[in-house]
């Protein structure tokens, strides 16, 4: 959203500046367009602030030293702003999703997002079906799916004390979070940790389970989301 607003403002500023260069200053179409883009991003300001000339036409603008300093300052601020907009856009493109969509951060353990690996749909579906059946047999219930997004962007959680699993965002981001939490249930069961408190489980075991679940997910046909 912020990226879209930023790009919109840059485009509008480029168009306004290009219009001014073309119609009021008599520059050619290419000069007006390049100059407009340079004005909008702040590059012209920095160039003019340093040299006292227009970046595109190279005309000397007869500016006072104070005016040059002012242009240099304003141009620098504009360049930083444009760079931030560009960085946000590239980052969002590389993630393959819009910046406002829930994200799990990518730090330490248990914070990676997963997806079904190419060609592994059948394997992943079979494992998920088995995990579901085992969970239902062991608890007499199914994971609760909430349509709302988690405030921190998490896609699922398990409470070790009750074995209760909660899945967020209506599972719009695929079935991997369900598989991950169901695997965690099996880990807790295998270690005799259901019904225990955080202190009884301890950080070391939590970390071990988060590491182990990555291999379990890979074996089941899932891969980390790019």
């Amino acid at each position, binding site marked *: 959203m912020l990226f879209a607003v930023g790009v919109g403002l840059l485009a509008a500023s480029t168009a306004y500046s290009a219009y001014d260069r073309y119609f009021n200053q008599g520059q050619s179409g290419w000069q007006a367009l390049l100059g407009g883009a340079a004005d909008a991003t702040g590059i012209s300001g920095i160039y003019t602030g340093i040299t006292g000339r227009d970046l595109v036409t190279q005309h000397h603008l007869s500016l006072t030293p104070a005016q040059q300093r002012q242009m240099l300052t304003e141009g620098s601020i504009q360049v930083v702003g444009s760079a931030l907009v560009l960085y946000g856009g590239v980052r969002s493109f590389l993630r393959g999703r819009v910046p406002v969509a829930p994200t799990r951060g990518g730090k330490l353990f248990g914070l990676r997002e997963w997806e079904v690996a190419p060609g592994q749909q059948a394997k992943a579906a079979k494992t998920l079906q088995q995990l579901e059946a085992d969970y239902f047999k062991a608890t007499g219930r199914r994971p*609760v799916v909430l349509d709302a997004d988690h405030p921190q962007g998490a896609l699922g959680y398990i409470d070790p004390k009750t074995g209760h699993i909660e899945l967020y965002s209506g599972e719009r981001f695929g079935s991997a979070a369900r598989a991950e939490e169901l695997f965690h249930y099996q880990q807790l069961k295998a270690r005799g940790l259901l019904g225990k*408190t955080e202190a009884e489980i301890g950080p070391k075991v939590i970390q071990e389970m988060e590491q182990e679940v990555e291999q379990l997910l890979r074996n089941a046909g899932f891969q980390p989301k790019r």
Partner: protein
Amino acid sequence: MDPSNDYLALVRDALYARHMKQVGCFAFNQASDRVQEAGTPILPTLERVLRDEVMPRCPSDPSAQHQGFPGLGNLLVDYFRIARDGQMERAAEFLSSLRGPVLIEAIRAISTVWDHTIPSPFMPTIETAARTGSPEEREIASWSLDWHQNKPQIEEELAASRKEMGL
């Protein structure tokens, strides 16, 4: 100072999951852990809140129930973990007073705390629920009795499944 007021605040904090800690994929209800640490003196407060505040207005739909009382399951596990140490008759009496979704969650909590075996003081209530309870009560009570009666066989099946998945 009357400690029951502190207990009441603590139990409600746990019931409404006001102090959650998330570590990776694991969510911990910290107030619930403190309830458990309080031990036997907190049992009357737990009974009162669960029976008088939760039971009359607990929805049967799992999503609605979790949104209304997200810490219900935690409190029931806490209750039975505390009661396990010398308070079994009291716990049996409390269990027999429960109905509906709270009874269902209580039977699940017993399965968690005693790893799918039913202690004998609880057996009459669970058998009654399996025979004469609502459809949902009958279902969970029958599930619990099935585990109790066939635990080695069910455990073996689930262990084989875990092994197949690399656990």
